[in-house]
């Protein structure tokens, strides 16, 4: 094992930069590649503004995060991707952001189509304006092979992205996904912070995952400021995260039913998703959980009477959800369609580093709440939902089992919150530790949301990195489409339901 080359840290723990091993570039590469070969997962690989690279590896079996860094002499280094496919998008990202060239990268294209943050240093030597998704797409040539291009504005009310299918008749040989249309500069806005708007930038990194990203942001700050959160507040944060999961899983199961033409579940779930969101609004005034969490604790506590009232509404929402979803599981036409579409090979899933629902649907036993417990989850664990077949059915089934767990967690959390006094609203945090690194992971409804902060000598963010679960998983959707019919794309896409804005930041 290569673990000795890394600094171990716990989820949410800050570490002085002096204690993060500063490896030589070749050593860094060998250490990361070796650790991934030994079963560690590359949770984050990113660059800082001074030709510095950071890697965070997750040891999901032993609750450990491993961090290392290196400093490059020149803006180039031998790419990790040929030996470590999990690094593939990370290396394209750091090339685009800081003009650092990972030499020998087999798929070297921009990720979001924006100008380099390092003035005068562009990994592709571009000087003119940069147009989104203008790149050389992978092409399959041959008689009767044709290309289908879709997006950025596609037939359906979803976010923009560009999809290129290489097809032979109905069969998809290959799908390439080009994103970046939603790039609005989240990470650049966070650099130099924290500022009053920083929490908003975290909340809107992926607006349907407000609780997950707000929590990860708060924990990053709390780690750097050395502040603990009272248990009651932590439990309320758990309620925020599980309500978000319940709402989105319900909506997704309904949308999956809709995509195979099973309308009763589709219409019921469309409405019930709103009932879950309204529970969040009951607690904090916003259906998406905006302004609920705040560094140090909460902006809105759940007082005993409110928690008590919410238990009743929770049970109603759950009864409706169960009724609507069980209807779908009893329909053979639905199961037939779900089981025949969108299979991802478990070995490939591991190789490319899938996270969250998509990973667990391939039998990969990985959930931040279980592996790197945070907030209330150490004392109040949730069971990890697993399926094996890696297809649409597996992803739907994992969601359903997680919904059951979320309901169980919510019920017991709300019942315990129905007693006792709310925590006082937190004051401003003390200054953040200078020259520190902090990593916080939160299991959002799509999967692992990772926030990494590196502070400068004044305790400001020298680098703030967000890894939305979608960043890991978009490639999984491309894999799921191989050999499928192009007409099954909407169903496969919905079964992943990835975030465009979370990827594009």
């Amino acid at each position, binding site marked *: 094992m290569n673990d000795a080359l890394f600094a171990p840290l716990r989820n949410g723990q800050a570490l002085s930069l002096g204690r993060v091993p500063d490896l030589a570039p070749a050593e860094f590469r060998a250490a990361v590649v070796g650790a991934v070969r030994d079963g560690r997962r590359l949770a984050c690989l990113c660059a800082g503004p001074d030709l510095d690279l950071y890697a965070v590896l997750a040891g999901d079996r032993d609750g450990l995060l491993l961090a290392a860094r290196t400093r490059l002499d020149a803006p180039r280094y031998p790419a990790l991707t040929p030996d470590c496919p999990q690094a593939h998008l990370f290396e394209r990202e750091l090339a685009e952001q800081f003009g650092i060239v990972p030499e020998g990268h087999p798929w070297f294209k921009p990720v979001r189509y924006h100008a380099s943050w390092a003035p005068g240093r562009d990994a592709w030597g571009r000087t003119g304006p940069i147009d989104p998704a203008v790149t050389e797409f992978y092409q399959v040539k041959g008689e009767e092979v044709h290309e289908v291009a879709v997006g950025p*504005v596609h037939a359906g009310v979803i976010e923009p992205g560009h999809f290129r299918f290489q097809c032979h008749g109905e069969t998809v040989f290959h799908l390439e996904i080009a994103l970046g249309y939603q790039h609005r*500069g989240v990470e650049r806005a966070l650099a130099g912070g924290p500022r009053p708007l920083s929490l908003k930038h975290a909340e809107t990194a992926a607006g349907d995952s407000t609780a997950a990203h707000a929590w990860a942001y708060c924990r990053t700050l709390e780690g750097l400021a050395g502040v603990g959160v009272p248990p009651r507040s932590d439990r309320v944060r758990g309620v925020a995260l599980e309500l978000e999961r319940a709402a989105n899983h319900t909506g997704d199961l309904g949308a999956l039913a809709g995509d195979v033409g099973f309308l009763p579940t589709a219409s019921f779930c469309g409405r019930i998703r709103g009932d879950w969101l309204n529970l969040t609004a009951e607690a904090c005034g916003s259906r998406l959980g905006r302004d609920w969490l705040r560094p140090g604790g909460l902006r809105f506590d759940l007082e005993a009477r409110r928690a008590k009232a919410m238990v009743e509404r929770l049970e109603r929402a759950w009864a409706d959800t169960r009724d609507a979803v069980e209807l779908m599981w009893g329909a053979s036409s639905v199961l037939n369609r779900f089981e025949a579409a969108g299979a991802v090979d478990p070995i490939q899933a591991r190789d490319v580093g899938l996270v969250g629902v998509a990973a667990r649907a391939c039998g990969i036993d990985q959930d931040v709440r279980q592996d790197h417990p945070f907030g209330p989850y150490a004392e109040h664990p949730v069971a990890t939902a697993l399926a094996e077949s890696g297809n649409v059915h597996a992803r739907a089934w994992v969601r359903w089992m997680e919904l059951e767990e979320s309901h169980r967690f919510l019920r017991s959390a709300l019942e315990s919150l129905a007693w006792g006094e709310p925590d006082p609203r937190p004051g401003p945090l003390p200054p953040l530790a200078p020259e520190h690194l902090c990593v916080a992971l939160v299991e959002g409804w799509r999967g692992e949301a990772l926030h990494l902060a590196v502070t400068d000598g004044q305790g400001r963010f020298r680098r703030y990195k967000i890894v939305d679960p979608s960043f890991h998983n978009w490639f999984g959707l491309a894999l799921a489409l191989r050999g499928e019919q192009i007409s099954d794309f909407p169903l496969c896409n919905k079964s992943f339901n990835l975030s465009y804005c979370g990827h594009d930041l």
Partner: protein
Amino acid sequence: MIHILLSRWRQGHRTLPYPKTLPALPERFRGRPEFTKGACAEDCRACAQACPTEAVRLGPEGLRLDLGRCLFCAACADACPPQALRFTGDHRLAARLREELVQSPDQELRLAEALGRDLRRVLGRSLKLRVVSAGGCNGCEVDVNVLGTLAWDAGRFGIQFVASPRHADGLVLCGPVTANMALAVRKTYDAVPGPKIVVAVGACAISGGPYLHQEEQLGGAAAAGLPVDLFIPGCPPHPVTILDGLLRLLGRL
């Protein structure tokens, strides 16, 4: 089949009776802000300093709150020592003109007026809209989409969200319009046959919202060159706020 019928019976009819009765909004819902006139202490700038998007300003003409920039985080109200500023439960926020979103203690918010007679004759009973997300966080998008579910059933009012701009009478724009979406937004607008309308939903689409200082975006629909007919503030606006705006535009409220 029998299970579907039983479920249908159990789940019942749940379309909200809006606009006949207003759905119960949560106690902590933050709607239209309200000022207590003359309560401000001399030289106090607490609200303006607390606002993360400079929506609250204290200029020579006094206090101004720009709903187009407001994220309804209530940091201003929290910071106000005499509590001269508070967020009410009033969900009606939409306006026809950008400058009407700038509120002052002496001026009531002028709610959106209906479209002119000619336009109403064409669009009043059937309004098909294409939603375009241009750097939105999927917050406004989901709360617009929700109007199509059977809880709100916007189809009752002839309002429908369609998949193609060719089938649409107008655009609903979410997000600050990223530089990377500017061309696509323009092309989508051009693809909508006239007469057409543009609705800007959420702080991002009105002013850039939390991203107003980022050069990766243009600062909303109007800044991107679209003629906006309706501005619906919020981060994101509640579905009832969006529906209220659309119905006012059609002269149905």
